[in-house]
């Protein structure tokens, strides 16, 4: 399957839980090399949409492709090319941050030396200092978020799918996070994220989609002089 120029291609995707339509006929596309921010109020369906894209939930109807791979039929291929950061990145509390990164590298099939090199590179991204050698059980939410983000990057994914990227991060780390995402797309990667933080979307995203009651109610490219706050208020009322 040739890789598509569209990193994310969602067509009429729906997910229902009984009578509740969490995601309703969503269609959107994200070109390769862009950051797409999905914003919307609580319960709008953002997390459900993301879980559909990473294979944690099955769609009720519709289809989606990531770099040309179908989420219904080629999930294993998709898992190889994406990095997923959930809204509550808790896993393997009993490992240290560094061990968690090693485990991720191992499970993703990276050679030992590559894992070592990648960890050394990634360590410099955030000022984590000694934190990486400590048990993750004692991590703050922010540090947990940072380590989970590093684990997403370890195998050099092509698409990052992130649910609430900056919740719990200190201002300095938010800036590092945003800049890392920009750097990532500069090298050909694509980011699809859901967030509540309008200023983050405004500052770092290329495109924004407003989701309300399971539907995409508005999409637009971010312009330097646009006010997302006004638009958001208007579309979600």
């Amino acid at each position, binding site marked *: 399957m040739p890789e598509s120029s569209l990193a994310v291609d969602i067509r009429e995707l729906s997910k229902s839980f009984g009578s509740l339509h969490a995601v309703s006929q969503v269609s959107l596309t994200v070109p390769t090399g862009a950051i797409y921010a999905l914003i919307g109020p609580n319960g709008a369906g953002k997390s459900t949409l993301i879980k559909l894209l990473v294979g944690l939930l099955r769609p009720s109807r519709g289809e989606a492709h990531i770099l040309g791979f179908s989420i219904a039929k080629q999930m294993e291929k998709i898992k190889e090319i994406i990095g997923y950061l959930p809204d509550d990145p808790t896993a393997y509390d009993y490992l240290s941050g560094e061990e968690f990164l090693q*485990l991720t590298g191992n499970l993703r099939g990276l050679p030992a030396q590559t894992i070592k090199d990648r960890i050394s590179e990634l360590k410099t991204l955030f000022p984590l200092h000694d934190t990486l050698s400590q048990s993750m059980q004692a991590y703050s939410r922010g540090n947990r978020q940072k380590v989970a983000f590093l684990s997403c990057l370890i195998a050099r994914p092509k698409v990052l799918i992130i649910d609430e990227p900056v919740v719990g991060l200190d201002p300095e780390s938010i800036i590092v996070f945003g800049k890392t995402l920009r750097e990532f797309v500069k090298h050909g990667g694509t980011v699809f994220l859901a967030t509540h933080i309008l200023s983050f979307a405004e500052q770092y995203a290329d495109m924004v989609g407003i989701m309300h009651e399971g539907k995409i109610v508005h999409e637009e490219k971010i312009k330097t002089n646009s006010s997302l706050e006004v638009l958001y208020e208007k579309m979600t009322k």
Partner: protein
Amino acid sequence: MRVTLSLLWADTQAVKQWFATQTLSKILVLFGFLVLGGFISFGALFFSNIFFFNLSQYQLYGELTAEYLIHAAILILLWLALGSSLIAQITFLLNPSKNVDYLMTLPIKPQGIVDWYFMRSFFINIFPLLIVLGPIAMSFAQVFTGGVSLLFLLRFLFAVFALVIIVNTLGGIIAYLCASMAKGKGVAGAFVTALFFLVSTFVLLQAIFPKEMTLLYRASPEEFFVLYNSLPLSNNYLPTYWLTHVVVSGFDIYAFLTIILCSFLIFISTAVQSQKIIPLYQRLKERAFAASFPRAYSRAGFLHTRSPLLLKDWLSLLRSPSEFGYGLFLIAMAIFFFLFFTRVAVFRPPDMAGKINSIIFSFVWLLFFTTAYLMRLVFPLMAREGKTRWYILTLPLHRDLLVLSKVFLGCLLVIPHIVFGVLIWFVMPYAKEYIFPLSVMSTFAIILLALVQGFLGAVYPNFLQGDNPERVSTSMMGIMTLFLSSGIIALVAYCLHSILQNGDSMQLIMSFLLSFAICVIATLFLYTRYTVSRYRV
């Protein structure tokens, strides 16, 4: 293989990490479990030696009876281990940890996860089976084959390994086929499981102790062989028969059949699980996700109750199927044990001392089940406030009230045990003439245990592990509570023995026990007040 090894490595890190903090208390906990395991092994070896030695005097008949008992032991262990494996696998599927959620987002083959879980379960299950079956088999070898040879050890290990493989693979297949049905059934599911457990117990007991068995004692040599060969467990199509045969007779065609069966089960189990794990995970996740949406519970009546704390704790158990199911499971286990005991006891009526010892044995088992039930449901009640203590401890409530509501709930939760503890003496052999003292003593002991566990659970609650009652009850404080509970059980059993055996005055002994209970509860209450006032939010 790489995935399996990586995940097993992560498990070893978990063990290391567990020992990294509060190392001394954890070593003590481990030591406590080792002592318990040693005690069980030693007890099994001691009684098996006596029993097999008696049987050996009946030559071939004795040896055949001993073989039958080994087969019965293997069958019972298979059934218990299968139940345990099934519960573990269904829990793994219905309540996947965050770690499993994480694995599902990685590009790894489902078989890697399945193999990892199989290996892990294999290591976990093999030790209890070795501890229980080992002494019985060793005793058989000592008495009937003149000693434990290397070959016998190999045959025994072969049988245990095969048993674990059968249990894990069958448990896996059934769990993967049933998990989808079990999800969301909650309390009804727990009841159905308990009912299934009881029915299968009845069938198992019928198979092990059929009516014909009572005739064996009076049968002539010719009749003996005819009767023996007609017993359900003499059927050589049973895989447990093959395992027994390998242990007692040697490697032959039955070993070969066992290998074929295990290979077949591994193949089928791996295929079913690898194929189903991801779709099943997605389906179960969706149901869990859907269940997390706001839903209406039946009216709890918080507005009208004068005991909102009690009601809150009651709902926390009632709305948690795993806790409710565990309580039912333990009660079903207790019923199984007593049913089993009533069947065994009818074959060889003992003398007077033997009868009283068997009553005391049943009494101690009843309290053991109650302790296990309390350790899971009552002891962790305060620790369960872990994530909500910011709320509950900042309310304008006296903290004593918080403790007392949990202690009171503990007393309510043991009502089924009290009722069971009275009714059981009507059906237990030899107990009918002692119904009054037995009922009074069991009621007293059960209430005292509930009070003690309620208070001790509030002394140094493990708030950090509050979501995991197993960890709470195996913490240092949990082990201390277990020891204190064991001490109380031993004291009450000793007093009961004095009443039944020596005819000591029940009024006098009850007065002593009541005074003892008042002193213990008063001390615990004061100490708990002291520690509760020092809780940090």
